């Protein structure tokens, strides 16, 4: 296994388990912006497309061969430094259709795990319920998510803090507080 293959495999398995057990942090092989780069490397190539409002990160996406797409067409969104106006492009992210729900986007956002807001999560991958403390995300993200998620439609969130990733698939019911 080449170093790149090792990195991509480690990243993928972290994401797979993050989405399989929503709310439970998994470890990525790199931290911070490098964690975002690792996810892009593991998932993107010239057969897909992505969006990032971050110019530097967009250049990295382009180097992977993936097409840079406007937010409403991009299956992958990367927000290494989400800000209040990130909500605009997040709101535009595809949620899929009833015949092709898998076209709902994957959104990768940085956050602070252990932050102030407490969420209660329920759904597939969770035995009963689990609580998640998370901050550093655009205000109203949870409101917007509740609006846009109508299972099986919706987006799948990957929340990054350092080298930790928490998955929140569209199947997870999120209760704030």
């Amino acid at each position, binding site marked *: 296994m080449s170093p790149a*293959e090792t990195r991509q495999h480690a990243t993928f398995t972290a994401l797979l388990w993050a989405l*399989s*057990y929503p709310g439970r942090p998994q470890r990525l092989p790199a931290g911070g912006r490098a964690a975002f780069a690792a996810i892009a490397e593991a998932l993107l190539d010239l*057969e897909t497309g992505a969006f990032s409002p971050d110019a530097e990160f967009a250049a990295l996406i382009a180097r992977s061969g993936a097409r840079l797409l406007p937010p409403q067409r991009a299956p992958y969104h990367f927000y290494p430094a989400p800000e209040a106006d990130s909500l605009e492009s997040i709101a535009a992210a595809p949620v899929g259709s009833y015949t092709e729900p898998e076209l709902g986007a994957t959104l990768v956002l940085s956050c602070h795990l252990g932050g102030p807001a407490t969420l209660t999560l329920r759904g597939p991958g969770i*035995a009963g319920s689990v609580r998640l403390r998370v901050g550093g995300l655009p205000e109203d993200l949870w409101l917007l998510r509740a609006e846009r998620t109508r299972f*099986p439609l919706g987006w799948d969130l990957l929340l990054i803090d350092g080298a930790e990733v928490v998955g929140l*698939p569209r199947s997870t019911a999120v209760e704030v507080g």
Partner: protein
Amino acid sequence: MKLAQLAHPRQDYSYGFLDEFGKRELRRRMLKAVAIPGHQVPYASRELPIARGWGTGGLQVTLSLVGPGDTVKVIDQGADDSVNAANLRRFIARMTGVSTTADTLAATVIQSRHRVPEERLREGQALVLQVPDPEPLRRVQPDSSKALEMHADADYAQMWLSLYEQLVRFGRFVQGASYPVLVHGRYLMSPSPIPRWDTPDLHQAAHLTLLSAGREKRLYAVPPYTDVRPIEFEDVFFQVEQMVGRVCAVTGARNKFMDALPLAGGGSIFRISDTGYVAKLLDAARGKPATIGPTYYDDEGRFFQPGVLRDEGQARNGR
């Protein structure tokens, strides 16, 4: 300069056989499958050096899932040592360098055709089921585009009708293996041709189940702790296969899924289908060290999660 000089030289196969593009594509689809439990996600399904219909769907998932630290178990009809299981295990090991095992407890990834092991799977384990036909609606709707619409609308009326017709004609449900289930209360799903005995194992399970159909190019998933309910009526219940009165000729055990072996003079003897489990029972009987995990069904035939099999009493005491 010639073009041949620019092209990369003919090389050995990548890790896991598939090139990076192939693995990435599968990985993208697998993540979506986990996010939408029970929904069939289309994928490219590349050809592998194993004939189509021989587990290439499961194999593609396994090859893009495992790393050198994994331990893989491969079974066919519950057996680790059948030629097909041996061949798939040999291929996975050759292409990825993983270690292999027959012990369900020692495996991180289990690829299976037609069975779930008897010992309960735990958190962090992945069960990869090979699927010949991913479409549970095929019997009532052979046109795949129409079946897709029915899934989109969660319109499973025809399926319920067919279940009702079985009751009227035969007095019970006549589906054998591949008994259709409703996942997360939303998607009708084929659990692959596992016997009904194994169907409840997927309900609120600790492990992750990935199902993949290579020929039909669809993969889907049951995440851990997800509702998986066989379709049944309020007053007529789903029933697992009858194992009452069957004693394993090798171990003397009861209430596990048994293979029937016909005898020349008529009649049959029985043997537990899960060969990895049998090996450990035999080791324990001979006083060798063997760690045997808790099983889905206890020695009296009770399923470990109470209330999941609503017909349990009937199954245990004979119908």
